[in-house]
């Protein structure tokens, strides 16, 4: 029941803001809708914690701890983004007309709906459809500004995404084929994950291997795993900041969610070994690919994209390491990343809106004097996202690396540590140059004060920042319980 509500609310919101024709109305609708979604997600989490799984329509929609976690994270990200979006677009009042805004405020709820659908759909086919839907709903968010570059980004996003998803579909079909011997396979429930997971051991091994390969590439494309990552920097730097944040923190989770589901099936069918080595390889590759681009990066929007490629890599590395800590570390990482990355995007957005550029060398530095709040939070978020203690991402990375060493994957772990240090160096060099320094010539000591006209941006900033700081020292018990149960599912425990 709750699941239906969760899905219905954003749909309705989308419809309403399509009908609405005033900016404040649309803002209110979105804000209210996402607030409601978050509340419902909270309830869902409570129910899941209480009795394991919640399902509707005889198992067509089903939410276990893993889905609940993803739903929760999506809801948080969506709310934060909608809060920020208000401020963001109000500051662009002068060159954005209401019709375009309607496009944004209509597509965003649909986008969120698709993401939630991915999480709660039990049928792998439906999950695929929902994933495709996330692409389709977000294309026009990326092409929002209608610049040549944003069209380019959108095109690449659609093409690469389309190919990736067709691979994912192929994988799904093969999975179905691999499961054909299972009694009752050719009914609708035949593609239900809960059913498949139960019978996975009887699947046809070879087919499952191919299926996993294709799915890995397919959902990996959505998650932006190297070498399928190429659409990310373009999309993230062209989309409006809130949308970009949602792509980085929302879609990533959904794609990885899909990957986890199939990994469990493959692991139960052909043993974890096969999947693990692929995951480790691609995870390491993604982290490694991020390194050079972070080191010599010109734009502080694109560098965020590479950071999320890097984090996607870390997560599937954790999934690949497996063991007691691997999946747990991965999901912890997913949680912490989902609150940290949007914060970074928001700061970058403020800076870009103020300086009218996203290039490091154009921004003369000394940001801390011009915009103290954003500047300091940006520095903090930068440190947090590079996994610097005492911020929470360090805990998850530590867990993942520990899983690697305990699993005997010494070489990958060593490489991972090396890459992470280098990435940190790149980030520190770039952002310290951006934030610190003398007062730039542009704004003297006279205007040496915070100039962020719209308070909403500050709300989202400070709210998320405080969450990040708190998570660094204290993780609420129930949340950890949820994550641990989710990790049990992800690590394939029956």
């Amino acid at each position, binding site marked *: 029941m709750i699941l239906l509500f969760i899905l219905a609310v954003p749909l309705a919101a989308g419809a309403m803001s399509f009908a609405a024709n005033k900016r404040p109305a649309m803002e209110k609708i979105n804000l209210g809708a996402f607030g409601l979604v978050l509340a419902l997600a909270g309830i869902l989490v409570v129910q899941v914690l209480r009795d394991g799984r919640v399902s509707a329509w005889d198992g067509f929609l089903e939410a276990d701890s893993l889905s609940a976690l993803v739903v929760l994270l999506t809801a948080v990200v969506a709310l934060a983004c909608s809060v920020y979006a208000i401020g963001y677009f109000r500051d662009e009042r002068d060159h954005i007309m209401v019709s375009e805004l309607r496009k944004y405020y209509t597509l965003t709820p649909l986008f969120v709906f698709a993401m939630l659908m991915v999480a709660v759909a039990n049928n792998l086919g439906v999950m695929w459809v929902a994933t495709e839907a996330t692409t389709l709903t977000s294309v026009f968010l990326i092409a929002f500004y209608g610049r040549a570059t944003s069209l380019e980004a959108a095109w690449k996003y659609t093409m690469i995404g389309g190919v990736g998803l067709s691979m994912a579909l192929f994988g799904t079909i093969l999975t179905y084929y691999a499961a054909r011997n299972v009694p009752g396979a050719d009914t609708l429930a035949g593609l239900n994950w809960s059913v498949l997971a139960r019978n996975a051991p009887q699947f046809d091994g070879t087919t499952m291997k191919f299926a996993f390969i294709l799915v890995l590439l397919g959902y990996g494309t959505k998650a932006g795993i190297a070498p399928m990552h190429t659409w990310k920097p373009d999309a993230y730097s062209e989309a409006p900041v809130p949308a970009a944040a949602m792509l980085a923190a929302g879609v990533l989770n959904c794609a990885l969610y899909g990957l986890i589901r199939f990994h469990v099936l493959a692991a139960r069918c052909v043993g974890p070994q096969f999947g693990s080595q692929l995951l480790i390889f691609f995870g390491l590759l993604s982290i490694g690919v991020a390194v050079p681009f972070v080191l010599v990066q010109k734009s502080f929007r694109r560098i965020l994209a590479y950071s999320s490629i890097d984090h996607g890599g870390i997560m599937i590395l954790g999934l690949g390491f497996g063991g007691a800590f691997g999946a747990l570390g991965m999901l912890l990482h997913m949680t912490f990343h989902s609150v940290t990355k949007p914060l970074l995007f928001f700061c970058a957005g403020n800076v870009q809106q103020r300086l009218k550029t996203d290039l490091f060398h154009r921004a003369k530095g000394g940001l801390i004097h011009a915009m103290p709040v954003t500047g300091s939070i940006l520095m903090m978020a930068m*440190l947090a996202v590079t996994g610097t203690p005492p911020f929470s991402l360090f805990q998850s990375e*530590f867990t993942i690396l520990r899983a690697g060493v305990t699993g005997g994957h010494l070489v990958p772990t060593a490489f991972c540590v090396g890459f992470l240090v280098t990435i940190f160096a790149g980030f520190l060099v770039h952002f310290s140059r951006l934030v610190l320094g003398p007062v730039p010539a542009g704004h003297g000591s006279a205007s040496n004060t915070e100039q962020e006209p719209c308070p909403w941006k500050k709300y989202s900033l400070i709210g998320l920042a405080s969450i990040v700081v708190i998570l660094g020292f*204290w993780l609420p018990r129930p949340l950890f319980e949820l994550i641990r149960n989710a990790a049990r599912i992800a690590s394939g425990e029956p």
Partner: protein
Amino acid sequence: MIDRAFFGGLLAYGAGAVAGLIAPRRSVWPRVLCCGLALFGGLLELCASILSLASGAHAHWEIPAGVPFLAYGFRLDALSSYFILILSLLAVTISIYSLGYLRAFEEKKTVGLLGFFYNVLLASLTAVFTASNAFFFLIAWEAMALSSYCLVSFHHREESTRSAGVLYFVMSHAGTGCLLAGFLLLSARVGSLEFSDFASGRAELTGPWQAAIFLLFFAGFGVKAGIIPLHIWLPEAHPVAPSNISALMSGIVIKCGIYGMARVFFEFLGMPPLWAGITVLIVGVVSALLGVLYALMEHDLKRLLAYHSIENIGIILIGFGSAMMFITLGYHRLAALALIAGLYHTMNHAIFKCLLFLGAGSVLHGAHTRNMEEMGGLIGRMPRTAFCFLVGAIAISGLPPLNGFVSEWLTYQALLAGFGTTESLTRVLFPVAGALLALTAALAATCFVKAFGITFLALPRSEKAERARESDSFMVTGMAILAVACVALGLGATLFLPVFDGITARLAGAQVSGDLIAAGGLALSAGSARGGTVSPAGLAATFVILSVIPGLLLAVRRSKRKRVTGPTWDCGLPGLTSENEYTAFAFSKPLRMIFAALYQPRREIQAEYEVSPYYPKAIRFDSEIESPFEERLYVPVQRVVLALARRMRAIQAGSIHAYLAYIFVTLIVLLLYGVRS
């Protein structure tokens, strides 16, 4: 009791941090509250450490962290308490000093921020020294690095400061990476993150694992300690920080590396291989020698002091290295002696280096320059500062009867005894190390004759120095306490030694303070009274007694003698001016010539003259020495990495066809892989 004091101290630091954030800007409150609370916290920590050292009790506390299986654990054993003792001593004095020093910062609104990070740094240092599991240790370690980074880049308006800060933080983070890897290996071997389990599980640590772990930790802690060749950040980062922070960093932050080495090498590593000890010893000698040689070439007072930190870390490592070798060779009492030498020097260096940096700070505060060539004659203008600095200079030069002498003496004794521990040729290592240590000490004395003489003596070389004023009583008090500590730790060495029993018992498996104290506490002995004794107190007493003789000599017919002050002989020139004075640069000239092979000095002289080259109108003289590690090691590596990175950018050239091709190829390859398997 102990825990109350301990956590009370931590809370005080925390309160200080908060106060720094919320106290009204541009008022006295941030300064007073931050420094006051830090002072209070320091006092509490001092009590805690003294209590636990006295009782020998091992206190242990756990606080559940964010993720349940990663806990914040504190453990206060002998070693931790010893370092807490050092830390809190410095915290107290520096806080007193800062009360005066930060007054100059008050018109800037950022003094609160400084106070915030200062308190955070103190708290995280406390945590580093007391962390009881790898996870919390890393957290505290990086928090320490982070806060010190923020403090280093406090004057971030200067480009030099920013780059120094970044260099520091990047290298420190790389070090942390090594530590992370090392701890992960340990935990994989032992199956836990608890230090206690590391210590108990050290037996099965052998072969390549042990080697890898040793190297990782040596690199990781070495970066922080500033051993050569991982030192390049140190002379950049320490000078640019506000002086009270420089004092804290050179005094105790780099000691975190030493603490870590003591912890890991002697407690977790089991029986270290002989080459490990040799490595540490050699690195120590090299660091000591090169550190002091580069210090000699510096004319920036704070950079000079920073290089001396490298030197003293080297001396400490000489002690540690030989201790490791002794453990391997099975001489536990000798190991204890060497370990004591190293640890004692750790404390002494913390104290006199802090004293010297505070002195430099008050010179900077008075004369507004760090360049020694612009100073001079300050002894008349800031006599108290000068006196304290002199004490520090004597102590760091290892001259009797101050504390530096005691620890160096112990080091010599350990090295001498080491000669008998093995038959192989490695035995030569010990005396040669001793000889080079002697060279180091002598060069250090030279360097501080320069530092003190040029800075404080003779005529002021600039009107900045002319207008210098003595610092206020807070700053002087801070320095005075440390000066007293230098003397006390020198004269009262025998009273202090028993402190080490708890540590050496755990780390080296022997308690030797009994043997080290001879003649009823009057003298210090090297293991046995035969082996040689020294008594700083006795020497000091003798000095006082003997001063009767010159007293008498000067007393005879004093009435007839007149004592006039006249102008210094100026070679017949019209009056002696500061141009005539010997400069710091000239002072170190002979050594620059002698060690030219090392310095590779480059000089250029441009003379402008009208009639004949023998009567130049103006002469420009430039000279610079090479800094080999930057130019030969780090810069090339960085260049290569960045070049590679730029080449890699071709991957993302913007062509969608290429992007699709990547996926396509991957797909084909994986499909074939699937076919094969």
